[in-house]
């Protein structure tokens, strides 16, 4: 697939897309589109899953609600059996109908090791399409939270096209002619763009009375945030899901540009940025030290100084605002932390960390000097600036931290092998369940290389047992979840395995000159305002159904 190939014109007028029917977006493609394989969840052209391939459910974090999508419904018929009813009248874009076989086939693919959701198969015993519309999944020991997460997070692929493929084609093939069920179909792509065009036969038009506004979506590969900023200002971009430092200034001066909130923090929150101490190293193995560290950091300075108030300081638990109901206010009141240099100093002093050699920095109780390095990828400018703030404010409290900026890949290496003092991390996105969040913090056992979770190598059997319990708690039982989470929080806040600092925003800035009715805190339309990969099923696709042309036509 040539990247610039002249793959024909669009719609009627060859070569160009009518401005008023086209949505220009950026922020979701970090490189030229390279594959359209919905099973490569993290690197297919954003929109492959969501616009072309669809999931059984959507989850709307704003309303905390699962929306049946390709599934008409789904339920646990008993503790170990989940039954999916596939929606009727859904068609693949090649004209074949979507059937229960497709769904069963897709779940079944998880048996392959190279499929990212292979892990759900650790608990699945059997999948079966009992009739055209019914799929029954038998579990050995069901992990309800994980399954709920799977249901809205993974796309269904057509069995009639995929059954013949080899494992390599399935798990690593480019799937250059994607055939899905979704609102859009592949139109063309280039080095710097991906173009989708509307699927006029989309099932939801009839079934749910939903219709996506734009005939075309031109998703622009964004090589730089600043270029996107310029394009939003000019109105050549309708939606930018880029992190645009300086947007606050623009929002105040430019009437056409808007964001979710009209004022700070302007953005919804998408994930939590943590300071991750390596708990296998001295003195980070000491919870008191970690707590002192938490108190020493001037998060406000990061929020306003570095980010210009487009992010929010995190709750001490680090739970994202949409999980607010799970935060136990009492626990937080008792064990929570806030920026307080004095307090940090006194915690240190109480725990025996004193400045014995008079260099302005504390030593360990054994008198060893403490010199910690906070490693942040070079080039990640906001984090680099943030880490300078962290180092500065920690030094105020007597903790000697210096910021270091190695190459990103070097940091990944260090992180995986545990060869670091302190790092910043934010690799857990918003989801339907805080279980994903705690799974990240506490997962055991700690391995030689920790490639995806628990980078700080924090070991607490009790906490992990609670997380496992949470995993097997039914999603429909929020009280039980709240109770378990409160217990986890108590441990978390006392132990501080990681230190939540701020919430990274769900970066989204729109220009209203061509398309209107964008999600906003001030209107009814509250869907997540982003087309990032994996966010379509969190409501991104619904945002598209709300858009209206500004010309009113």
């Amino acid at each position, binding site marked *: 697939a*040539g990247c610039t190939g002249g793959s024909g014109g669009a719609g009627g007028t060859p070569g160009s897309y009518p401005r008023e029917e086209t949505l220009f977006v950026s922020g979701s493609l970090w490189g030229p589109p390279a594959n359209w394989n919905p099973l490569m969840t*993290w690197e297919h052209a954003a929109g492959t899953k969501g616009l072309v391939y669809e999931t059984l459910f959507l989850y709307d974090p704003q309303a905390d609600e699962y929306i049946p999508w390709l599934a008409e419904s789904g339920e646990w018929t008993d503790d170990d059996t989940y039954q999916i009813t596939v929606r009727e009248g859904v068609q693949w874009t090649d004209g074949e109908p979507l059937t229960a076989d497709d769904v069963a086939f897709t779940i079944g693919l998880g048996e392959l090791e190279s499929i990212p959701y292979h892990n759900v198969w650790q608990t699945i015993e059997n999948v079966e399409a009992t009739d055209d519309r019914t799929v029954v999944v038998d579990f050995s020991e069901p992990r309800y939270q994980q399954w709920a997460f799977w249901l809205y997070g993974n796309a269904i692929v057509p069995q009639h096209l995929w059954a013949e493929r080899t494992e390599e084609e399935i798990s690593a093939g480019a799937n250059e002619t994607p055939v899905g069920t979704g609102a859009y179909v592949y139109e063309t792509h280039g080095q710097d*763009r991906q173009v989708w065009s509307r699927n006029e036969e989309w099932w939801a038009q009839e079934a749910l009375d939903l219709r996506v506004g734009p005939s075309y979506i031109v998703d622009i590969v964004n090589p730089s945030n600043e270029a996107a900023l310029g394009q939003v200002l000019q109105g050549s971009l309708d939606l930018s899901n880029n992190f645009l430092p300086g947007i606050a200034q623009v929002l105040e001066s430019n009437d056409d540009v808007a964001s979710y909130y009209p004022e700070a923090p302007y953005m919804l929150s998408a994930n939590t940025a943590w300071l991750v101490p390596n708990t296998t190293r001295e003195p980070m193995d000491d919870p008191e030290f970690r707590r002192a560290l938490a108190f020493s950091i001037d998060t406000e300075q990061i929020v306003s100084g570095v980010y210009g108030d487009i992010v929010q300081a995190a709750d001490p638990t680090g739970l994202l605002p949409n999980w607010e109901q799970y935060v136990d206010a009492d626990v937080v009141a008792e064990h929570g932390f806030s920026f307080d240099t004095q307090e940090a100093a006194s915690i240190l002093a109480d725990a025996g960390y004193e400045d014995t050699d008079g260099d302005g920095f504390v030593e360990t109780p054994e008198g060893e000097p403490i010199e910690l390095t906070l490693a942040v990828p070079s080039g990640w400018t906001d984090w680099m600036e943030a880490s300078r703030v962290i180092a500065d404010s920690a030094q105020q409290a007597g903790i000697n931290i210096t910021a270091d900026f190695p190459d990103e890949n*070097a940091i990944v290496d260090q992180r995986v092998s545990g060869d670091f003092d302190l790092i910043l991390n934010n690799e857990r996105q918003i989801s339907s369940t805080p279980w994903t969040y705690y799974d990240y913090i506490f997962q055991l056992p700690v391995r030689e290389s920790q*490639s995806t979770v628990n980078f700080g190598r924090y070991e607490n059997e009790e906490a992990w047992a609670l997380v496992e319990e949470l995993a097997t708690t039914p999603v429909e039982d929020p009280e039980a979840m709240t109770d378990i989470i409160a217990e986890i929080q108590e441990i978390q806040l006392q132990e501080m395995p990681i230190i939540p600092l701020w919430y990274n925003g769900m970066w989204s800035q729109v220009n209203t000159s061509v398309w209107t009715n964008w999600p906003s805190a001030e209107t009814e339309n509250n869907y997540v305002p982003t087309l990032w990969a994996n966010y379509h099923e969190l409501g991104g696709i619904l945002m598209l159904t709300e858009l209206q042309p500004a010309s009113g036509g």
Partner: protein
Amino acid sequence: MRRYFGRKLFVYALTFFIAMTVNWIIPRFMPGDPVQSRLARASLQSPEASAAMQAYYERLFGLDVPLWQQYLNFWASLARGDLGISIWLFPQPVGDIILGAVPYSLALLLPAILLSWVVGNWFGAYAARNRWLDNTVLPVGYVLTATPYMWLALLLAWGLGIVAGLFPVGGAYSFALTPSATPEFVGSLLQHWFLPFLSLFLVALGGWAIGMRNMIIYELESDYSNYLEALGAPRRLVRRYAFRNAMLPQLTGLALQLGTLVAGSLLTEIVFSYPGLGYLILQAIRNQDFFLLQGAFMFIVVGVLIANFIIDIVYVLVDPRTRIQMQGGAA
């Protein structure tokens, strides 16, 4: 003659070999593991899945064999014309990705190099004979050569692009268009091409102008110029000869500067988000995409070498002196 080119070709082959080896070695001996970084981005839920996939992809990319074998495999597949599969743009073949970017880079570089060379030499030649021009061309030339490529690009992008709004400052053509043979599309291509081209052109221009001016002055002092003047040849003829002869070192200069110009184009492409090789290289580095990096780098090296070779040939054609010396010095 044959010996001369044989020798040149040998140097070029050696350069190619060393360049490719360096480029192969460096990423592999540095920290970081591309597959790991890839999977890190995937934020997979379970460590088991992650480990399984790590092994799977290492096998896929051929990273599971010992280094020496990887190295041999690298040359073996290169011999087959196979540049491998991109890690970053998985699973696109590196060759395809590069072929998509090369036209853009060439479109910037060829005109910028050739035009700046021609125009620069022309200006320089005039400057050498004209006090007033000399006093303007020279300082401007120095400022231009001393300008970092990206800074000039920034100024142009800011001044002509953002403030004046005359030119777009990113991409290769309007996002509202798909490639086609329409005048609209071609116009858009040109519009997007202009600023990056201009910045490359301007920076290179100064150097040529200055070089030419100085060379002409030297040529005008040479014995044959003196002799012509003593025989009453008009200024015009003397100048013409001087210009012709001053061109030759400039031609060598061109060969020597190619690498630099290519490098400059990388920076310019980055400033203007121009989808050429520069942008690819930067991304390949960020994503530890060994294979893409190797491929893009190979293209640059091969391009520079071929261009050098062409210049070598041209040089031999226009300068009888080299021809004679190559034959082992008749006379």
